[in-house]
């Protein structure tokens, strides 16, 4: 595929991620912090987000699997996940957190498990989308093009 086409696909794909609510304005903030002196900033932050989230989702799974669930601990993990998803602009993941924290307050294991299921789904979706986005970027660069900046 030629560079122009790749760039157009990239712009359209990025726009759809914002339109569908996967990403919010905070992600644009990350992009603005990227420049020639820090060309991989977004990928680096997002990679940290992936690692951190997977750790937290594992911790949540284990915590909810206990015979006596420590809801304070569960809530603490969700709070962290809310913070990190908010910091990278992963809006749909972030939005799963408030209802999850309500379920923790109600100390309801069943509803917590459903929240966990939902947040896992949203996380996997946004991870997939972002990986696709980064792959598109790499293709553009490999074809000798510049990555378009979205306004």
């Amino acid at each position, binding site marked *: 595929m030629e560079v122009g086409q790749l760039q157009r696909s990239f712009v359209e794909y990025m726009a759809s991620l914002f339109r569908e609510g996967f990403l919010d304005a905070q992600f644009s*903030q990350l992009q603005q912090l990227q420049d020639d002196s820090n060309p991989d900033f977004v990928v680096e932050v997002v990679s940290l*987000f992936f690692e951190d989230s997977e750790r937290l989702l594992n911790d949540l799974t284990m915590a909810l699997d206990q015979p006596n669930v420590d809801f304070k601990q569960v809530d603490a993990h969700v709070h962290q996940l809310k*913070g*990190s998803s*908010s910091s990278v602009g992963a809006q749909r993941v972030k939005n799963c957190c408030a209802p999850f924290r309500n379920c923790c307050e109600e100390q309801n294991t069943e509803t917590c498990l459903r929240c966990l299921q939902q947040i896992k789904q949203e996380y996997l979706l946004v991870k997939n989308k972002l990986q696709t986005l980064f792959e598109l970027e790499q293709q553009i660069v490999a074809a000798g093009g510049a990555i378009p900046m979205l306004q």
Partner: protein
Amino acid sequence: MDTQFHVLAVDDSIIDRKLIERLLKTSSYQVTVVDSGSKALEFLEVREVGVNLIITDYSMPEMTGYDLLRKIKGSSYLKDIPVIIMSSENVPSRINRCLEEGAEEFFLKPVQQSDVNRIKPHLMREKLNSLKRKAMVECISPDKTRKYSNNNLCSIFLQNICE
């Protein structure tokens, strides 16, 4: 003659540490980032380092940003360093408590470039205050051979600014 200000950032989240570090560096600050209040205090103990401002997350395990703030304000050699608190939660009582304890500002997370732009005045004010304190100390020097008129004080002051 641009003095580089040194900012110490404290946050237990690896993502937020990366973010705040980048934000501060775009404003040309020298940045040190640590992941806990106790590490922050350890770093501050090395007096030669010279930290000009501390920005800390509120919710941290073991020592909260508020605890750290209290320790800093309770320390005779640290209390003049401006402190800014960051939090993902907009809790008015929390914000007031921090401001009352001496925090200069409270930033809501995720922290934006516009928040970081508000740091400069606090750094400049503290720099001015520390120069004044230094000039005052020189003024009351036991060295009786020097007379301290207003002119001399001004030149000492200006000399210090230009260093």
